[in-house]
Each structure stands twice: as C-alpha cells, then as structure tokens.
C-alpha cells in the first residue's frame, strides 16, 4: 500500500489548524471546558436544591385558621410556617395562580362541628402542581394533615376501648434498593453524551476546513496536481481531524474528572468512579470511535461546496451518532453483546459501566473496539473513493 503524502498532509493540517482560532476554541475550549463545568454546576445545583428541601420550613397559608386551631398548632409544631389568611374559593384560586400564596389550606366553617359529630371533615388544599417545588410542599402538607387525621382516629378508638394497632392491619416498609451509583444514571447519561459530542466537535472545524474550505480557497486544485495518490490526501486529513478529536476527548474526560471531584456527589447518594484510573479507561473505551467520527465528518463536508454549506450540514449531522444514546437513556438499555456492534452506543454503555464502578465484560470491550474500528476503516475507504472522483472539484 502506497502511504506517500499521508504524513505530510497530516502534519500540515495539524499545524495549520493549531493556528486557527475557531478550530482551537471548538477543540480545546467549548467541549472540554464548558460542558464539564455545566454538568458539575447542574449537579451541584441539584444537590443544594435537594438539601434545602427537607430542611427548610415550608410556608402554608391557612384560610380561616380559627376553624381548626388544633390542626394549625399541629402543623406549626412540625415545621410549617402558617400564615393566616381569609380567602373564599375564588380568592384562593387567584392567589395560587398569581403565586402570591403558593400553598393554601382552606378550612371550612363546619370543620369543628363535623369533627365533633364524627363525620368526615373536609379541608381544601390549593397548589400549582406544575411547579415542582410547590408540588413537594403540597405533598408534605397533605401527609401532615392525614397523619393528624390518623392520630384523631387512634384517639377515638382508644376512647371506645379498641387497641388502635388492630386497625392498622398492614404496615408498609419501604426499602429503596437502588445503589447510590445506580441512582446517578441520569447524570452519567448526560456526561457520556457530552464526552462523545465534545469529541466530535473537536474535529469538526478541521474536517470542514480541510475539505470544503480547501476547495473554497482554491488550493484544492493545486493539491490534486501533486504526485500523491488522491485517497492519501484525504487519509491525511482524516488523521488530522482524528488527532484533534483525540485531544478533545482526553481534555474533556480529564476536565470531567477534575470538575466532578469538586462536586459533593456523595450528598446526592451518587458515588461515581471518576478517578485517574477510570479516566484512562473512559478514554480507552472512546478512542476507537475517533476513526469513525472523523471519517464520517470528513465525508459529509467533502460533499459541501463551501465552508458555510459544510457548517450547515454538520451542525445537524453531528447529532445523528448521538441519537442511540438518547434512546438508550429513555429505554434504560443495559450493556448487551448485540448493542456492542452499534458505534457510539457501545462506547456510551462501556463508559457508563466504568463510571458505575462495575466490571466490563471483556468480550463486550473486544466487540466494541473491533466493530467500531471496522466501520471506521470502511468509512475511510469510502472517503478515499470519493476523493478520487472528479466531481470533487465542484
């Protein structure tokens, strides 16, 4: 096989793009720095949000509180800030809709009387369930009110000489078996997605510049008159785009490892395996898909007549390889031998396994690496064939 010129083209593209601000920003800054910080920030926000939820007092506006002084005392004693208001139904609805009062507990005038007569005493709880924060508050108020009801019921049984325990035939004990690592699935899905996307982005501008850009500038024609087999020119360009992807991948994984170490993941009940050894494994899982990604982007941009046209195609096309990941997230796919034949998805599943500190099945790793490399080689060959066509000149 004649390899003439591949090395020369690779070095030239690598060096030229090192001087291009757009390529550098997308390869070294956008993906590798911004996405880990974004994810770390999001996780940190979730953590602080979760913390405040159980600790903070919730505020409830009780309408006509004078109708149920004991209930109000019961709520106050359990950490509810009671604001006393006097609303009719319409006013209560309006107040919740306008969010001047977020949760309103309406006590009807006959509450005490019905309670005394042993009839069900209704209360009305107003809240806006489209707001996640208030929904949890309302749930807590509801639980407190029904607990209050159970206590009253138990007192009634006691007064009639019945053991209150006998009217609680079943007690449900909840045991959450999701391991701390298992719970982190959402965060991890997002992370592996961003690692792969950021890797692709790293080679995006080089792929455009080396193909559509070269044609647009008018240097392609002279390049084609050099005594180098045409397919070798594109092989060199694919290699250069791939090298930028590799740099982008290593940086992104490193940054994730560093950024996540600053986030108190344990407080979320997540223990993610993101130390230096895991980072190396992540890179090893992902690296084989670089050839595929770089040949893929190069082929697409080789079809475009201008830089701008290529950019338009690629912004759309770059998300296609990551679609299986979204399905994987929605369907909760687990690593299986069959899925290891799907590029990007197999990398995602292997990475998730590493981060969850689970064992990778060696056969899975082998199938993922070999099949992805084969697809990459096929795409590279196709790119070479394309570059031998005359229509390339546009």
């Amino acid at each position, binding site marked *: 096989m004649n390899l003439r010129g591949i090395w020369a083209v690779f070095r*030239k593209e690598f060096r030229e793009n090192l001087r291009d601000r757009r390529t550098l920003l997308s390869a070294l800054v956008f993906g590798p720095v911004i996405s880990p910080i974004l994810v770390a920030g999001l996780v940190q926000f979730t953590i602080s949000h979760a913390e405040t939820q159980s600790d903070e007092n919730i505020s409830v506006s009780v309408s006509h509180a004078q109708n149920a002084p004991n209930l109000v005392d019961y709520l106050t004693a359990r950490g509810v800030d009671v604001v006393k208001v006097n609303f009719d139904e319409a006013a209560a609805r309006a107040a919740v809709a306008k969010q001047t009062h977020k949760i309103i507990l309406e006590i009807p005038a006959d509450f005490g009387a019905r309670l005394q007569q042993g009839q069900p005493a209704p209360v009305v709880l107003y809240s806006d369930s489209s707001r996640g924060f208030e929904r949890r508050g309302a749930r807590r108020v509801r639980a407190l009110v029904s607990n209050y009801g159970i206590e009253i019921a138990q007192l009634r049984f006691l007064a009639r000489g019945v053991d209150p325990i006998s009217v609680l035939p079943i007690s449900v004990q909840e045991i959450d078996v999701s391991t701390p690592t298992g719970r982190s699935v959402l965060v991890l899905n997002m992370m592996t997605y961003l690692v792969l996307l950021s890797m692709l982005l790293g080679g995006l501008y080089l792929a455009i510049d080396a193909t559509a850009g070269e044609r647009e*500038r008018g*240097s392609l*024609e002279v390049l*084609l008159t050099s*005594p180098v087999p045409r397919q070798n020119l594109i092989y060199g360009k694919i290699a250069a785009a791939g090298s930028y992807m590799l740099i982008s991948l290593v940086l992104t994984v490193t940054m994730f490892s560093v950024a996540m170490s600053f986030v108190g993941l344990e407080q979320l009940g997540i223990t993610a395996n993101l130390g230096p050894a895991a980072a190396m494994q992540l890179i090893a899982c992902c690296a084989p898909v670089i050839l595929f990604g770089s040949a893929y982007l190069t082929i697409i941009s080789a079809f475009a007549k201008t830089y701008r046209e290529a950019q338009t195609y690629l912004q759309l096309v770059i998300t296609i390889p990551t679609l299986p990941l979204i399905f994987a997230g929605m369907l909760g796919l687990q690593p299986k031998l069959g899925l290891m034949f799907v590029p990007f998805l197999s990398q995602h599943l292997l990475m998730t396994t590493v981060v969850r500190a689970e064992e990778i099945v060696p056969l899975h790793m082998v199938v993922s690496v070999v099949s992805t490399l084969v697809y990459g080689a096929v795409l590279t060959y196709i790119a070479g064939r394309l570059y031998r066509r005359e229509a390339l*000149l546009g």
Partner: protein
Amino acid sequence: MLEARDLYKSFGKIAAVRGVSFTARDGQITGLLGPNGAGKSTTLRMLYTVLKPEAGDAFIDGTSVTADPLAARKAIGVLSHGAGVYNNLTARENIAYFGELHGLTRTDREARAAELIEMLDMQSFADRRAKGFSQGQKLKTALARALVHRPRNVLLDEPTNGLDVMAVRNLRKLLGQLRDAGHCVLFSSHVMQEVEQLCDEVVVINDGQVVAAGPLAEIRARAGNSQLEDAFVSLMHGNDAGSGAPK
C-alpha cells in the same frame, strides 16, 4: 514538452472541449488564447491531470496523463486559477509543504524554498502568514509553490488576473527567465497584450476547438492583420467577438 492530442471533455450536456490538439515546446512560452468559456481552463486541467479526458490523451514529456497521472504530475508545476494559498501557513511553509508532497527531503525543500524566495524577491513577507497577503504576494507564493520541485513544464491558468501593473511586469520577467532556462511554459489568458508581449507560440481556442495555432507572426499573417487583436476577432468569425474582446 506538453502535447495535447485530440482532447474531448464535456460537463453534462455542455461540450467544453471538442478535439483540442497542440504542442508546447521546451524553451518557449506558449499562450492559450480564447474568450471566456472557450475551454482554456478545461484543457489546462486535463493537461495537469485534475480532469480526465473523455477521449484523446495528453503527454507530459512523453508520459501519458491518463495512463500514469502520478508520473506526469512530477514533471509539471501548476499555478491554478485563483492561486489559493493556505492562509494560516507562512509563504515559506506553503512552499515547503508542496516540496514535501513532491517527495523532497527536509533539507532539500528548505534550501529550495530559500532559493525561490530569493529568486521571486519574497524576503519581506516570506515568514508572515498568508492571511493578509496582497494579490501579488499570493501569486508569488503560489508560483514558488509550483516551482518547488524544479518541474520542466510550468502551466499557469490566467496568472495575471487581479494583478497590478508592477506585478504583471515581474511575472513577465520571471516567465522569460523560465523560458531561457529551457522550461516549457504554457499559460492561458484572454488578454491580448499579455499574449503579444510574452508568447513565442499562440494557440487560439474558441468554442472548445483550436481555431489557429503557431508562431505569433504566422497567426497575424494568416488573419491578414498586423494587430493580434484584429486577428483574434477575425478568427472568432465575429460570432463570439463581443464576449471575447479584451476590455
């Protein structure tokens, strides 16, 4: 020596070149003259192996461009239309890159780049990135790039486009030097004066066919005109004279 032998090429339904034959000899400057769209660029592109002829063949020092394009490319230096250079490389790096593609060793290509920079008087901008280059500077860079492997044959597609008077003069001088050194120089143009001032031989192309070829004087004589421009117009049979006449 360059030889086109009955070249044919069409794009879709448009027949761009229909049986073009001519010879460009060593130690001569040959001008490919014709109006816009006559098929000059297409002919050149077949000669420098970027396009494949549908029929016919071309020979670079006897090597067929269809049978062995890689060998043919080694013997030609090309200045393409527009002379695109790599903006993020310096002039020197642009030259050396093509030296490398032509298989020159590192010391060889560095020495050759230095030599060309001197020869084309590029010292003042040789180590600046090409991004801010003037048309003249870009052309010199592209020309040096075309000459880096000491090709025996030099092909230039409309080299004077967009150049100012001084740059055109420099180019003319340089092409003269190449001829005197025994190179075969072939360039295309639609500008009469250039062809008149530079060429030893002229090949006039119109509508994808050669309408006249030979030494300048012969062409003038054949058309019965002492002015090349008038000869040119009469060769076009008046049909395409409007679009082909120089501005």
